[in-house]
């Protein structure tokens, strides 16, 4: 059971979902500093300005991409009854999310390393 794509899909979607909702709360708090002016906003943004947090943003992008594409796959299976290729659709969702993470993560990595492009 634990090796089926259905279970892996469920576990990854749930894990990324919990990570994303916790991040959402942090995001609302960070952006909230903007009401106190530019200095307060930029100071709060600086808390997350280290190269390590920029690398974590790549994992965040991976979580968003996986959750979104696996969610679209789930919608096709459950709402539109596209049940036949559901296993291949999971591989496709995973591959698209991985590709998007690489494409979107590269600028983030270069930025984290201080390399201009």
């Amino acid at each position, binding site marked *: 059971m634990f090796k089926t794509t259905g279970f892996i899909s469920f576990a990854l979607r749930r894990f990324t*979902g*919990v990570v994303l909702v916790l991040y*959402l709360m942090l995001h609302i708090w960070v952006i909230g500093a903007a*009401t106190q002016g530019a200095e307060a906003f930029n100071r709060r943004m600086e808390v997350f300005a280290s190269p390590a947090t920029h690398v974590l943003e790549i994992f965040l992008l991976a979580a968003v991409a996986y959750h979104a594409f696996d969610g679209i796959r789930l919608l096709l299976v459950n709402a539109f009854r596209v049940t036949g290729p559901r296993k291949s659709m999971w591989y496709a969702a995973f591959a698209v999310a991985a590709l998007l993470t690489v494409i979107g993560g590269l600028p983030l990595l270069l930025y984290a390393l201080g390399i201009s492009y």
Partner: protein
Amino acid sequence: MGFFRMQRLTAVALVAFMALHMVVVHYPPGHLDFTRVLERLANPLWKAIDIAFLGTALLHGLGGLYDALIDMEQIAMARRAVAGGLATIGLAAFGYGVYTVISFSPAALAALR
């Protein structure tokens, strides 16, 4: 509207909101500073989009968290308390987020210049 239908509808909306958000706000990385945020949020349409995005994300996110929590047997017994707690957190976060978004105004932008 049932819980799963709400999760589905908010999920579809979030795919569109998130794509827009990533392209407009986060890419290229490193260009996000106070003035840029202020310029964008001086536009009422962006305010409306961001408030809708915030509400949709909170509904979907906290709804998903509720679902994950009540899957655990001990927590499932207190599902009403869990729902109440998450609703309170959601309302507080939505209120704080909306206050943040509506605080931006052309007057604030002019004061910076």
